[in-house]
């Protein structure tokens, strides 16, 4: 039996996000030979639907003003209504996917596979996928009983989009199914991130600090190094959580996306959320005391060292070389 496979299309400003095409790749690896159906929800969807119809055979459109901003509490009742029994639904592991996926799986009676980074051949209705745990330090193989369907969230960047060829897909307007949806959670507004004193997205050389810096007072070592290099200082999430640096200095999916030429990562473990904020393939130099830190898999140059010893030495060496 060929699985009934659906992908949920996230979109911004009338264009499908990269995740939509990554989900197509993931769907085809998980369910060889499947013909995924694209689900597009929102308001004013013709452009996105045409774009998806050029890649896939079938697009279901749910166009309602109430869905203009995605609200998981409106979307789950819609999806419970329209998905067939045993459906396999792929979502991006994004703020929306995490909001929607777990509860939806319960309501569909389906299995839930979150933040999938890889797949292996399925056996019947047993899906075999790869996830990571402990902030990417180790991976796991999972087996999943998908006989009652599955909701699968897919990590951004793990399944690069493939050329899908040109399809002449049918856009099926199912907006009527999305009429009169109600929820106990209502969207009010989006408050954009505050701009900071410097714009790290425009900097060519960045010194980034993470939890490995230890104490707030040690931050001065990184500041002195950045000053010596002529670089700007940025950070990973724990530093902002601890209120040591402003949110406008945070690199990552929940912070800013930077495109430097050189990125020096100090005491940063290298979670996918952090790496997701570094674009443009910079020279990535990582210094970390943990030799197993995932950052060393992404970095071009790595040093296993104690920051408190190495940073002053490095700063001094730079001053000497000037």
């Amino acid at each position, binding site marked *: 039996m060929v699985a009934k496979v659906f992908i949920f299309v996230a979109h911004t400003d009338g264009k499908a996000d990269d995740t939509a095409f990554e989900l197509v790749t993931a769907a085809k690896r998980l369910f060889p030979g499947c013909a995924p159906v694209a689900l597009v929800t929102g308001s004013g969807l013709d452009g996105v639907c045409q774009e998806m119809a050029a890649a896939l055979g079938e697009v279901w459109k749910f166009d309602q003003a109430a869905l203009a901003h995605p609200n998981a509490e409106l979307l789950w009742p819609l999806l419970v209504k329209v998905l067939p029994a045993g459906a396999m639904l792929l979502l991006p592991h994004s703020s929306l996917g995490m909001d929607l996926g777990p509860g939806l799986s319960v309501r569909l009676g389906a299995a839930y596979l979150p933040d999938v980074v890889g797949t292996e051949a399925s056996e019947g209705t047993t899906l075999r996928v*790869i996830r990571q745990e402990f902030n990417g330090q180790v991976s796991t193989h999972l087996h999943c009983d998908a006989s009652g369907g599955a909701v699968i969230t897919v990590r951004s960047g793990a399944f690069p989009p493939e050329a899908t060829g040109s399809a002449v897909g049918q856009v099926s307007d199912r907006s009527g199914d999305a009429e009169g949806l109600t929820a106990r959670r209502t969207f009010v507004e989006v408050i954009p991130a505050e701009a900071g004193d410097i714009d790290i997205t425009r900097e060519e050389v960045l010194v980034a600090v993470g939890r490995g810096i230890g104490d707030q007072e040690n931050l001065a070592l990184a500041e002195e190094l950045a000053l010596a290099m002529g670089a700007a200082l940025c950070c990973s999430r724990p530093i902002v959580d601890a209120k040591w640096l402003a949110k406008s200095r945070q690199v990552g999916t929940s912070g800013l996306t930077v495109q430097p030429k050189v990125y020096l990562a100090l005491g940063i473990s290298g979670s996918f959320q952090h790496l997701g904020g570094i674009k443009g393939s910079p020279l990535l130099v990582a210094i970390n005391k943990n030799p197993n830190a995932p950052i060393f898999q992404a970095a071009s140059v790595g040093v296993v060292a104690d920051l408190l010893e190495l940073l002053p030495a490095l700063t001094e060496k730079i001053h000497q070389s000037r």
Partner: protein
Amino acid sequence: MEILVCVKRVPDSAENEISIGADGADIRRDDLVYSVNEWDNYAVEEAIQIVERVGGSVTVVAVGTADAEEVVRREMAMGATQGLLLVDEAFEGSDGLGIATILRAAAQRGQYDLILTGAQADDGAAQVGGMLAALLDWPYASLVNRIEVNAGESLRIGREIEGGSQEISEIATPCVLSIQTGLNEPRYVGIRGIRKVASVEIPMLDAAALGIAEGSVGQTGAKVQRVDYFVPQTGLGAEMLAGSTVELASQLVEILKTKGGLK
């Protein structure tokens, strides 16, 4: 407001290098330092602050082995009103839905207006809060980084969405919220605080006491099973530098100079 906060005892990944045992069945746990899941600690702090503003109580609950008592007691030392442990051999091997099913049974024993979980824990699945909400048929919001209690039966909440923006919503109570780190500053717990709650009794409930049917949770009830742990072979990895501190600094300066890292 009556608040239930679900917490998990996890290896502290800031303090530990995680490695895998010889047969790949589990990580090496012998020498690990355990603590409360970081996200959960923010959730407990938020619950305590809400109760300080509007009154009510905070109950901290953990599913696990008897070892989980230490983290429940730690969170009680922060100021939670009471603790609850859900412990049974039959819970071992539960998937996310199994854990949510066990927590639902605990939630239904009280009259809670609000249930908080951490947004995720050591396995990064970010699933239990949303599943618990669905099992209870309560509304849910994930990645919450702001909570204001409105007059009446609703909350005004912020969710962290991509790019550092904040999505503001109104949500009806009772509801389940999963908490993102950074929304408050969790208070420090000293030895004295732990001592104060050292003799407080923490009730422990098993599957029978919770009315959970055999086989509905644990390994047998799990649709999702972890087969093994492994370290992936990915890409080439970094060119690793070696040498004394001074040698490392010299090598780094050369590399940075060549690649435009010194301006």
